[in-house]
Each structure stands twice: as C-alpha cells, then as structure tokens.
C-alpha cells in the first residue's frame, strides 16, 4: 500500500475501523439494529432513524483490499453460482455465505436487522434476497424507474432546479417508496420519523459537499495536484458513508484545510508531476498501489475519480422545504449521472477539462458486465475532446484474473504514447 501523505487519511482509516468495531459491539452486546444497504440507497433516512448503515460496496472494497475476494468468490462458485455473475455488489454476500469466520475482515459482518437496495441492475434483487435469506433479515427493495428525459448539463441544474431535472413522476414514486422504507425503520426502532431532523441532516450534507467542492477547486487550480486520487477517495468516502454528521463535516473541513495548506506551501503529491490522469469507474480495490505506479517513471499522477468530484455536483440540494423529495432527487438518477449517456459522458468531459487532464484510464469491468455500460460513449467523448483513453479490462473487486505486472506494462506503453504526443 502506497504511503499516506495526509494525516487526514490516517484519521479517516482509523475512524472507519473504530466505527465498525463500535457497530459490532452495539449489535452483539446491546442488540442494536443496523442495516446493510446499496451505496445508492437514501442512507440519510437510516441515519435520522438512528440505524447505522454499512454500505454494501464499501464492504466489498474492504474484502477486496484484504485480498479475500478470490477466496469468497470461489466459495460462491462452488455453491452453484456461475463464474460469469457480477461480483461488485455480490462479494459482500459471498463473504457471508461460508468460509472460515477467522478470515473475515475486522471480525466480519454481524447479522443486520435490515437490508436495503434500489433495484437497478437485474441481479440486485436476487443478491439481496439471498443476503436476506442467509442472515434471516428483512429486505426492503426500492424499484427504479428509468430516466426518460435527460436535459443537457445536469450538474448545472441539480442544485437548484432538481425538481425539473429528475422528472415529477419519478420523484413522486421515489418519495412513496421512501415512505414505505420509513415505516419499516419505524417498526424496527420503535421511533417516529422526524422531518425536521432530516432537513437538518440534508443541510449538513450540503455543508459537507460545499467544503468538498473547495477541495475539488483547489485540485483544479493548483499547478500540481496536492493530493493523490486514492487519498481523495479514502477521505471523501469515509465522510460520505456518514454524510451530514458532525464527524463527516469536521473531517471534510480537516481534509480541506490540509489540502489547502499543501497548496499554499507548494507541496505536490508527486513533485515530478508531468501528466495528469483521470480514473473513470469504480476503484480498483484489490490493487490500489496501481494508482501510484506511474509517478516515478512518467510523473503521471491520478488526479481525478468520480468519488470526490461527484460529491458537490451529485449531492448538493438547495431548497429543502420538502427534504424527502430533495432526497429522492439525490437518489433517483445516480446511475444515469455516473455511468450512462448522455449525462456521464458530458459530465466527465467537463470534469476532465476543468482538471486539466492529459489522459484517461477507463475501467471496463468485464467480470461485472452489467456495470460496463456507458463506457464507450465516455471513451468517444473524451477522445473527441482530445484526451487519449486507455480502457482497463479488469474487475474492481475480483483479483483472480488481474495480472498486475502485465497491466502496469500496458499502461506504461500507453503513457509513452501520450508523452510522445505531448512533446
């Protein structure tokens, strides 16, 4: 694992570990309920009902980073689930279906009181039903109508004009489903839902994302990036999973201050920075060292991933008279915004320009086929904008077919060609 350059990164990692240990203790000793949910669920509703949530994708990333994905996925395949099935959102399930409990990261996932997922890809209702059966827990599913109208430059509308951006019928439907989820959370906790508390939390999320926007602007403007991409991700996501909370806001602030100080002192993540890279897609969780592997030889630094950039554009909502509806607008189109045409390609090109990107690497998750969508449109749009692109055919969590050396060689070749273009 590459060295940590920011103190904040260590603080974020420590917080997450302690948070998870506290969660296990609460569940085992105090019998408190917690939930496992897909990352694109309205985590805010769980928070205001005092039900901590483990994000399914976060846990997948932890299992993968501990190099356990092969072990668990082999077990799942042996149970009759074929090898062509998508792994990103099912690795956590695999890690609960058997195997040696002593191997599980951080002691493993305790039994959740509830599981929650938006039914995006066709697999997910199946994965979460199995999860629910394995644990004997309730599964709340929110169905996901597709976007029909997708006006240009969504990120210029999403903060103030979200009502018109996300289509009334989809917002109404999402709010109705939220009400069902709230009822389930009320049954679980015995507490009533408090709309004012949600509004306050949403205001907190806005504050947090405004701070993260400052970080994004610092990275855009600094002559050389002050913070490596994978450290951006660690800091941002530690805050996003508990977004709007006191800790999240103060961590975002500490992160911003540290980045700002580095910019003011002229500290660069890679002092020999000559090439600014963009990583499109989910993180390569099983090999995060990959992200620093091209600094020494090429001065090539990963500057951008969706994780920081999406915070301000995807989460800020002004006009919180009806916080539930505003939350619905944040939830209803994440997949279109991040992964599908026209929204993903348009936004990513805009981000590439603002971040002065020289070349882009695009994760093409072959082992996670249903999530390899929209990428050809993104590749074409970047190339049209004059940014060379290298597709990386790999799985975000499954290391079984990842040849680290060969892949580094391939990227090196690509960067040589980018260098040659620039000189």
């Amino acid at each position: 694992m590459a060295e940590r350059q920011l103190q904040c990164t260590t603080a974020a990692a420590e917080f997450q570990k302690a948070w998870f240990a506290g969660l296990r203790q609460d569940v085992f000793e105090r019998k408190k309920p917690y939930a496992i949910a897909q990352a694109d669920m309205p985590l805010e509703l769980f928070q205001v009902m005092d039900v901590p949530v483990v994000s399914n994708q976060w846990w997948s990333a932890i299992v993968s980073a501990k190099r356990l994905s092969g072990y668990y996925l082999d077990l799942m395949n042996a149970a009759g689930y074929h090898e062509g099935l998508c792994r990103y959102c099912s690795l956590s399930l695999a890690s609960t279906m058997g195997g040696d409990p002593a191997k599980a990261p951080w002691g493993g996932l305790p039994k959740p009181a509830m599981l929650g997922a938006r039914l995006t890809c066709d697999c997910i209702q199946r994965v979460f039903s199995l999860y629910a059966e394995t644990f004997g827990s309730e599964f709340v599913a929110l169905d996901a109508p597709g976007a029909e109208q997708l006006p240009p430059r969504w990120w210029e509308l999403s903060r103030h004009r979200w009502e018109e951006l996300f289509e009334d019928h989809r917002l109404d439907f999402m709010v109705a489903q939220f009400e069902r989820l709230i009822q389930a959370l009320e049954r679980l906790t015995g507490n009533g839902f408090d709309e004012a508390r949600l509004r306050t939390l949403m205001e907190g999320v806005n504050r947090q994302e405004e701070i993260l926007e400052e970080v994004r602007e610092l990275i855009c403007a600094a002559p050389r990036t002050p913070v490596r991409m994978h450290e951006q991700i660690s800091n941002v996501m530690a805050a996003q999973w508990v977004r709007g909370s006191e800790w999240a806001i103060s961590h975002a602030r500490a992160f911003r201050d540290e980045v700002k100080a580095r910019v003011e002192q002229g500290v660069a993540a890679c002092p020999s920075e000559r090439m600014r890279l963009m990583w499109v897609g989910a993180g390569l969780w099983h090999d995060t060292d990959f992200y620093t592997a091209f600094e020494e030889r090429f001065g090539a630094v990963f500057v951008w991933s969706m994780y920081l950039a999406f915070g301000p554009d995807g989460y800020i909502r002004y006009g919180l008279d009806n916080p539930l509806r505003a939350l619905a607008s944040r939830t209803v189109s994440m997949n279109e915004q991040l992964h599908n045409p026209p929204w993903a390609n348009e936004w990513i090109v805009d981000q590439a320009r603002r971040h002065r990107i020289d070349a882009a690497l695009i994760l093409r998750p072959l082992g996670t086929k249903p999530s390899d969508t929209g990428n050809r449109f993104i590749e074409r749009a970047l190339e049209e904008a004059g940014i060379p692109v290298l597709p990386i055919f790999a799985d975000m969590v499954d290391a079984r077919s990842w040849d680290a050396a060969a892949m580094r060689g391939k990227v090196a070749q690509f960067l040589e060609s980018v260098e040659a273009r620039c000189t």
Partner: protein
Amino acid sequence: MNHAYQTYTGGVQFNVPDSSPEIEQLQQSYRARLAGALGQSRPVAGVTSNTAPWELLCAAGYFPVLLSPANGPAPFAAPYMEAGFDGRTRSIFDRLLSGEWSFLHTVVIPRTSEQEHKLFLYLREVARQEPSRKLPRTLLFNLLHAQSAEARTYGLSRTRELWKALGPASMEELAKAIADGNAARGALRALLRLRADRLSGAEALPLLGAYYFMDRADYARLAVRAADIMAARPAIPGPRVMIKGSMLDHPHLHRAIEGHGAVVAAEDDWWGSRAAGQDVSTELGPLEAVFLKYYEDAPSPRVFPASVADAWFLETASTVAGVVFYISPDDDVRGWDYPRQRSALDARGIPHLLLREDPAGGDVPPECHDRIEEFTTRLKG
C-alpha cells in the same frame, strides 16, 4: 406430409409433420419476423419484449411487432455498445443504427430489464449526437415489476402516459384490440394444451412465436385451425420435460432434447408456454386491465419477489418428469436463480440437468448430447 423449412438463423432443416396452409403461414411468420411487417399500411411500432402493451399500440393505429433479430456480428453497435450486453439487445441496437429498420415509425422499450433501459439511453444519445441518422421515435415504457403498492400505482400512471404519447385513440378501438388480443391468447392456449401429448416443443415454438409478428386477429384464426389439425394426431411418446432459464427465441435446444426421445412440454419463457397467460380483463377499465395484464401476468427478469417469479415454474415442474436448465453463456441474471430453483426441484424429487452451451447456431455440442442422452435415459427408466 413432411414440410421442411429453414429457420431464420439459416441453414438448419426441421421436419414438421401434418402441415396445412395455416400451419405453414404461422411458421412463415415466425421465420420472417419483422419482414412480415414490411407491407403494412399502418405505421409499424417495434417492441423489444413481451411487456410492451400490444393492445395500446394496436388501438392507436400501429402495427406492433417484436424486434427479434438473429444474434450475430453487430458492426453498427460496436462503436457505442460494450461487449457485456446480451446478443439480443446488441442486435436490436445494431439493426436500428444500420438503417435496415428505417420502416419503423416508433420503438417502444419497456423497462423490463436493465439492458432495455440502457438500450433506450443509447438510442437517445446516438440520436442526439448524430441528428442526421434516421432513427425511429423511441419511447420508454416505465413498467416496473416489483410487487408493491407503489409500483402498481406508478405503472398504471405510466400506462396512461404511454396511451397519451401514442396519440389520439378511442376507447372503442382499445376494446377491439383487447378482444383481438384475447382471441389470440385463447388460440395460444389451445396450442399449449396440445403440448400435453400431441405437439413437440420444436414444433410448438414457431407456432406460438408467430404471435409476436402477426396481426392478432389473423393469428387467432390461423392458430385455432392449426390446433384443430394437430389435435387429430396420435400421441407422442416420451418423458415430458420443461426448459427453464435463459430466453430461447429458436427451437434448436428443444430439437436437441427431443432427438433423445423426450418431449419438451413447457418452457418458462414468453416465447413458449408463457406467451398467453390470462386474458386481459374485460371487467375493469380498459387501461387498468391492460396495465394489470403486463404487470401481474407477464414474465420478466425483474419480477420481484422470487416467490412470485417462481410460482409458475414450480407449479409446472410438478407436471413434468424432469427439468433442463439452460443458462446462456452470456448470462448474468438467471445464474442467481439456479441454485434456489435446483434446490426446490431436489426437495420435490424432480430430476434436473444444467446446460450452459449455446444452441443458437443450430445445435448443441456433442458432449451436451451425451449429457442429454444420459438424462433422458434416466427419465425413461
């Protein structure tokens, strides 16, 4: 009399006994697929799956037809569409971009799978980026399949919106379309009943599948007659099996299994046994009745929960001697169901076999035949 015909995938010959002009016409429509819509005076509306509400399209003056090209190279799709898409979605996208289907006025894409939603977005984006390309109008029908009060209310409202978007049409036209659709379903059911003992699976699929490419009043007339003719045949011997898993828009796997002395009496697939289901109710308001038909009584990979999705399968499994699971090589959905469904069969003592090889080229590989032979021998014993 034996009637040999070529399937639309080309090259493979089948023998279908007891032919008649009606049977031949049904087979011809199944084979011709979209070509049958070419001479239509009505504007042609392509649909991408079984859950597009045929009655609404028909009442609005369209000739609805299922988009179902043979899988194969997709050079027009390749610059935009990733390899992970299933062959069917990729081929539909490819033909639309190629201009080969420029006679289509409209395409209606139900949100019946995630790939279909992506297809809608991709088509929209190509149209936006390349306005000179001639593409049909594309509508997304946001029909959801989770069984919840909210999805039901939402689906009904989206059905009403689709009805508006299709243009002015009268409730009388809709009532007529419902009657025609129901007559066609009645005919489908008559053919399906024959699968108990008179009609093999390989024979049945073209006769049933023609339903998606024809005017439904015509289909009803021809299929009723075909069923009458087939009813007079002697019973076909052999253990009855069901196919479960990935969709099959050709009869090759059926033929391979039946070549080993079994009879494919059912498949959990809208190309076969699930084509008809119940009639559209004539007791309810027509829009609500049409919506409920497609929401409650049409198979889709997104039907949720599993107990609802599996109900037909488990009921039908108890009527056959064995089940052949076919999970296509590019599958990323059905494989999640397979272990659960396999256990359900084990619990009921129903034998099963899993095949992963793709028969779309005309036949399954020899090792597959060995496994099928072993399985059918076991069933016969």
